[in-house]
């Protein structure tokens, strides 16, 4: 009897032991945390060339920003990730939670080449912008004409519109612009949320994944949707005339930034990696593949490519971005108001 127990115990130990991979510490490793988008291209343009330069190993963690920030918070005492890329507002959230360190920009040789808006987006020295995007309205120019964000709620258009859910990155900026159009642009977004809520029965859907929109447009389920410029390219390939709106209130958007984990084991290496990513060469290649609009002003692009991106200092300056502090302080309230007016 005892033998049987021993044997089964040994079998268990064996299987548990086999599940652990032996820790190999033969080289420097840099752990980064990024969005899951376009990883094949990043690997080719950023990760592999950098590994050759630094002679180190790059470990890449992916996921949406909420998951990745939660992980950073959980590992606060013993950080796993050395650097991460997140949205501007999430960078401020990480900074408030004490998860990140100031970035020593004197060690970034490409820093001077960045657009001014990207140099220190939150004005706290804790983040550096690497790409930004415009958010406006993609629409069927043969079916409608969009001159204002408020046009989306016109009775003849509302039943052909997909609106971003408040929980998406495009949701709050789109509501903010609608607020400007309604001349009621308070930080709580109450007026625009109420306006959308009043049309909730007509609006086709409140989308959560922009990847869904191309199919809905193709099936003529929708004629228009507020989208980020980074999802624009596939719309131009549809069989219908699709236009990018330039509403009179302007375009909104967002910026993604790099942050440095507080107490990270490889801060020097992380800074070297950031500098590489911000270099004119890497930013040009990422732009040419339509992955990220460049934050480096030395990047020169042919018109065909620039048209599919958010390109140029004038564009960057003209975007009406929601300040990170406003977004953070109001996010919970927006979702609450949204659930009351639209969600039910």
């Amino acid at each position, binding site marked *: *009897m005892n033998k*049987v*127990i021993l044997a*089964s*115990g040994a*079998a*268990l130990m064996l*299987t548990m032991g086999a599940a652990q991979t032996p820790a190999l510490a033969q080289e420097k490793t840099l752990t980064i945390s990024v969005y899951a988008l376009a990883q094949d291209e990043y690997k080719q343009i950023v990760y592999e060339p950098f590994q050759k330069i630094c002679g180190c190993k790059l470990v890449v963690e992916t996921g*949406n920003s*909420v*998951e990745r*920030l*939660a992980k950073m918070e959980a590992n606060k005492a013993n950080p796993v990730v050395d650097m991460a890329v997140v949205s501007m507002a999430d960078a401020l959230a990480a900074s408030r939670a004490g998860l990140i360190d100031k970035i020593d920009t004197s060690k970034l040789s490409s820093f001077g080449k960045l657009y001014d808006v990207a140099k220190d987006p939150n004005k706290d020295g804790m983040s550096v912008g690497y790409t930004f995007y415009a958010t406006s309205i993609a629409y069927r120019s043969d079916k409608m004409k969009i001159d204002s964000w408020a046009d989306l709620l016109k009775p003849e258009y509302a*039943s052909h519109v997909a609106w971003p*859910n408040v*929980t998406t990155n495009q949701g709050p900026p789109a509501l903010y612009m609608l607020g400007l159009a309604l001349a009621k642009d308070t930080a709580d977004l109450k007026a625009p949320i109420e306006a959308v809520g009043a049309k*909730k029965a007509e*609006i*086709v*859907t*409140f*989308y*959560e994944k922009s990847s*869904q929109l191309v*199919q809905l447009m193709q*099936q*003529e*389920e929708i004629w228009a949707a507020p989208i980020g410029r980074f999802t624009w390219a596939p719309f131009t390939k549809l069989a219908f005339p699709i236009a990018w709106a330039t509403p009179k209130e302007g375009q909104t958007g967002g910026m993604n930034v790099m942050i440095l984990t507080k107490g990270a084991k490889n801060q020097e290496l992380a800074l070297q990696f950031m500098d590489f990513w911000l270099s004119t060469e890497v930013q040009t290649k990422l732009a040419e593949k339509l992955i990220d609009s460049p934050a480096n002003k030395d990047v020169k692009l042919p018109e065909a490519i620039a048209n599919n991106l958010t390109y140029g200092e004038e564009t960057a300056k003209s975007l009406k971005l929601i300040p990170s502090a406003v977004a953070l302080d109001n996010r919970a309230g927006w*979702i609450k108001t949204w*659930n*009351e007016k639209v*969600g*039910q």
Partner: protein
Amino acid sequence: MFQNRAEALALALPAAIFAATVFLVPVVILLSDGFRAPAGGWTISAYTDFFSNPLNQAVFLRTLRLGALVTIASAVIGYAAAFAIVSLEPGAKGKVTGLVVLPLMISPVARTYAWIVILGRTGIVNQAFQALGITEAPLRILFSETAIFIGLLQLFLPLMIISLISALENMPKDAIPAARVLGANWFQVFWKVVLPLTKEGLVIGGTLVFTGSLTAYITPAILGGSKVLMLETLLYQQVAVSNNFVAASVIAFILIVMSFAANILLKRVATARNKQRSPQ
């Protein structure tokens, strides 16, 4: 087979420890989050908060309603289909059963995306409706409860049919003719003979369909979207968007309780009918 229970238990030990450490313990930890008070100790305030929110109430009732409707519809359609299949020749029976099972081998994502095309404004359903003059303008079916209902029914109907086929096959062949000879009409035959004799299949099929409908994520996410939230899509929102693991744990616990309750309820219904019949 074994000389004593202890040996048998010892052999089961590695599997039991494995299941406990990688499944049971994490589930208990996850669910306990919903009962933990912020200041320490235990509380059910997360549950009272959850149910006092009108949005959550609406989502809870919608999930319950759709689960029940899908289960009832699949039972009605399932009995008809299972009857037809068991009355076939053995060769044909195998082939038709294979056809019923076939959709289960296709990814739910692919099946659900197909529904977007079928139910869309320019899809077959709307084209047919307009061609037949049933509607003037295309109906909006996508992103509604109707779309979720159709998607879930198609997803889980095979499970009900298979359960009922095996139940009907185990029923004595002469039970129905005997009841007819004794003067029962078709309704009485079904209600007093077939249903009691196949109730186990109905309980198994019903539990599978109901719990499946409650916990399916892809179908309500694609066909309902955030406009028609169900508990699972709400759960995802709480975790991936709001990072609110307490609310997510509350929803997970509610889903588990609803699944168990459905199973117990269905069994009760079946045994209650048994007792009614036993004095005869």
